[in-house]
């Protein structure tokens, strides 16, 4: 092993520094990009800087969040762009690729680098890499309060001298230092003092950058970075350059690498070591004294990662989140489901009394469609809030650490457990939670098995069937459905891994960030935005599907039938259901009623119960009593107030022990249960439940999968789940019959 080389700093080019500062002053609308390691409080800082100007979207083509804002400062418009968290500029995740690409292609005017004051050395690695770009840098020294807690006091002035760029102390969560930070970024940001790499490497860099000067398509601000990345063997930079026809450059880099190797030099290691040596020097200058204290995080971890209690604690927390979600959200869900929809239907009937067809469409399709979407929102908002809390507090990383061993057997890592667990609440946020996974094949795989996790919307179907057919063992039936869903998820994960989506390999690395108390404003914004985007996405698909089903139910299939006045059996819907029902005969429910009820279940699974009611009890949608405007408003407001009260009252009961199993006794006398008991045998009922559990994700989940991974993945998921549902229901029916049920 060669002797360690002396660490080095580049001699700063004073003239170039003055030039950049001058040039920056002249830019009319400076573009600032914010770059930093994950968990440096970057999101909070962006929120503090941008406030309500913050706009959040997705990067084109990838589901990586894009946060940007336009700000006014001293008469200038600043374009602020937050880049995803990155440990380095050699991309490893989709997020890091976005960050690197933005630096290469957008050529921002200033890089605002956010550092975690409590983990300076590692954070400086990225800073020094950023200085390989010829873009002015300004540093935000964030989480200063947390570092002090650890016993670390950072000397910002010394740090600034050592780096050659302005350093501003900030506590983003309390909005401290943010104003100064912006001013410094615009007035004093400069190129800084980068790393001087070992001579052999600097020679190679000089040669490569010399060649780049003849290549007009490569931006000068990136030359040094690109040369170093080539020498580090960064596969994504090589791919990028060869795709743009710069193979000569790659060949030149390879020649240098071969020459270095004959001198027993590994460029990748030497470059990393040179950066770390300099980062260490700077950190020692800036943090002269370290009095290591046992931090709160370490104490908490002793409990949360305890060999015996760690996993039970995690499961208890998950349970708590669900209890919270459903007890806080369900009064609102009920409110949207019944009183609000009835009121809206009442108004619509009154307003459209002279247009019966339009009235039927509005009352029969549009209001229930909108209602379906709306009724998801309270649940999602609470679930997203809880999820953001667990993520931002640092606990999610611990959960991944705890569950990693289990997920390894599926070729996944611990992080994949969280979306699956969320699926029990609602599949929709679960699908968007797959974003936390690094590899695309993992994201797709997990999204494809999430719909097997029995979401809360399926419970009403189980409950009514359990009441009708299994009065004594109802809760067992319900629990076995959950279990079957999980088993199917694991089975298909295993199958998919061995066929279409093989594991991409590569090691697994998790960071366990310090625990933090999340900022409420950030949590709220996060959850609210996700909920809103869900509503936007769901509105069109769900409305369209509901309208189509309504139309099919309204269209008569027999001669002499009148539009919108046919018996469901004689509608197009009924005849299609009749036509396909023989397909379900081997599953024990080959009648058109049972088959037909499955179709609207595609919109939302709980609708299956309503449709069964409509069909079996011949119940037409009860004509809502037209309410006056004032009366209706009063009723709606009263119901909203009641929901709010119930919701608040539910918070303490969250801590009570959950009821095991569903209370099936109450429904026993219901007319629907009685009708179902006549129409199904225990065997066919069980098969029906299995089919409902597995047959397809609801339309909203399909939409979420399509948004994350494209339509193809979404339709494949629907298709294979239909097949899986048919096969499993068939097996269950035949087995149950063989057992004499």
């Amino acid at each position, binding site marked *: 092993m060669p002797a360690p080389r002396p660490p080095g700093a580049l001699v700063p080019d004073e003239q170039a520094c003055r030039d950049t500062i001058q040039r920056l002053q002249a830019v009319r609308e400076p573009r600032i990009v914010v770059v930093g390691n994950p968990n440096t409080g970057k999101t909070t800082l962006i929120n503090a800087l941008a406030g309500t100007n913050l706009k959040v979207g997705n990067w084109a083509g990838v589901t990586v969040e894009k946060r940007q804002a336009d700000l006014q400062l001293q008469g200038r418009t600043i374009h602020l762009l937050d880049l995803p968290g990155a440990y380095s500029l050699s991309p490893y995740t989709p997020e890091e690729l976005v960050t690197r690409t933005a630096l290469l292609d957008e050529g921002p005017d200033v890089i605002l680098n956010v550092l975690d004051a409590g983990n300076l050395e*590692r954070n400086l690695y990225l800073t020094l890499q950023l200085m390989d770009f010829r873009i002015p840098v300004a540093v935000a020294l964030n989480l200063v309060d947390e570092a002090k807690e650890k016993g670390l006091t950072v000397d910002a002035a010394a740090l600034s001298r050592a780096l050659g760029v302005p350093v501003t102390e900030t506590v983003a969560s309390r909005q401290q230092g943010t104003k100064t930070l912006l001013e410094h970024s615009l007035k004093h940001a400069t190129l800084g003092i980068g790393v001087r790499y070992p001579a052999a490497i600097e020679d190679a860099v000089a040669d490569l950058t010399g060649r780049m000067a003849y290549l007009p398509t490569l931006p000068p601000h990136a030359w040094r970075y690109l040369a170093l990345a080539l020498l580090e063997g960064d596969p994504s930079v090589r791919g990028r350059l060869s795709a743009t026809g710069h193979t000569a450059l790659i060949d030149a880099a390879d020649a240098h690498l071969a020459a270095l190797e004959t001198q027993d030099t590994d460029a*990748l290691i030497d470059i990393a070591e040179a950066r*770390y040596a300099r980062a260490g020097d700077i950190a020692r200058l800036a943090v002269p004294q370290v009095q290591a204290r046992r931090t709160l995080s370490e104490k908490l971890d002793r409990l949360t990662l305890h060999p015996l209690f760690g996993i039970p604690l995690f499961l208890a927390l998950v349970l708590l989140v669900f209890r919270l979600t459903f007890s806080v959200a369900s009064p609102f869900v009920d409110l949207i489901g019944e009183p609000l929809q009835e009121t809206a239907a009442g108004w619509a009937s009154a307003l459209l009394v002279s247009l019966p067809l339009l009235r039927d469409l509005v009352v029969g399709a549009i209001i229930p469609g909108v209602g379906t979407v709306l009724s998801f929102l309270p649940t999602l908002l609470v679930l997203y809030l809880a999820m953001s809390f667990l993520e931002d507090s640092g606990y999610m990383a611990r959960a991944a650490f705890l569950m990693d061993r289990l997920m*390894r057997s599926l070729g996944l890592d*611990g992080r994949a457990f969280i979306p699956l667990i969320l699926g029990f609440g609602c599949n929709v946020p679960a699908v968007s939670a797959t974003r936390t996974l690094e590899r695309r094949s993992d994201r797709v795989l997990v999204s494809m098995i999430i719909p097997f996790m029995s979401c809360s919307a399926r419970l009403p179907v189980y409950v009514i069937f359990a009441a009708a057919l299994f009065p004594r063992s109802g809760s067992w039936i319900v629990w076995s459905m959950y279990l079957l869903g999980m088993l199917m998820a694991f089975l298909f994960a295993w199958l998919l891994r061995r066929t279409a989506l093989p594991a991409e390999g590569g090691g697994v690395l998790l960071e366990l960030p310090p625990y933090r108390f999340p900022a409420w404003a950030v949590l709220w914004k996060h959850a609210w935005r996700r909920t809103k985007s869900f509503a936007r996405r769901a509105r069109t698909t769900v409305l369209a599907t509901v309208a189509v089903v309504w139309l099919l139910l309204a269209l008569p299939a027999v001669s002499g039938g009148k539009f919108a006045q046919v018996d469901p059996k004689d509608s197009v819907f009924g005849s299609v259901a009749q036509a396909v029902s023989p397909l379900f005969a081997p599953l024990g429910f080959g009648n058109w009623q049972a088959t037909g009820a499955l179709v609207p279940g595609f919109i939302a699974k709980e609708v299956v119960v309503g449709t069964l009611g409509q069909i079996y009890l011949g119940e037409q949608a009860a004509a809502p009593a037209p309410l006056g405007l004032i009366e209706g408003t009063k009723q709606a407001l009263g119901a909203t107030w009641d929901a709010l009260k119930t919701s608040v009252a539910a918070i303490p009961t969250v801590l009570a022990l959950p009821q095991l199993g569903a209370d099936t006794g109450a429904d026993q006398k219901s007319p629907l249960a009685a009708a179902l008991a006549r129409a199904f045998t225990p065997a066919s009922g069980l098969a029906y439940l299995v089919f409902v559990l597995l047959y397809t994700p609801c339309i909203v989940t399909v939409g979420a999968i399509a948004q994350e991974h494209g339509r193809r993945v979404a339709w494949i998921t629907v298709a294979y789940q239909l097949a899986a549902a048919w096969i499993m229901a068939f097996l269950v029916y035949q087995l149950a019959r063989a057992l004499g049920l």
Partner: protein
Amino acid sequence: MDDVPLATLHPGQSGHVVSLDREHPLRRRLLELGFVRGARVTVVRCAPMGDPTELRIGGSALALRRADLHGITVRQ
């Protein structure tokens, strides 16, 4: 002063990084996170199911699987 794979260290023990396997799947990333020659790394704990292992290096707490610890050589 033995050079041993990081996987052989028990919780509470620490060592200084000597080298990373050339074929280590996380080689680049580990270097970037501070697994450079001479860096001190401490094994903190194993997860309840035995894997992965929590490490402390610099100011970071990282978790790696046992298989990935084998490619890291440390000197105790």
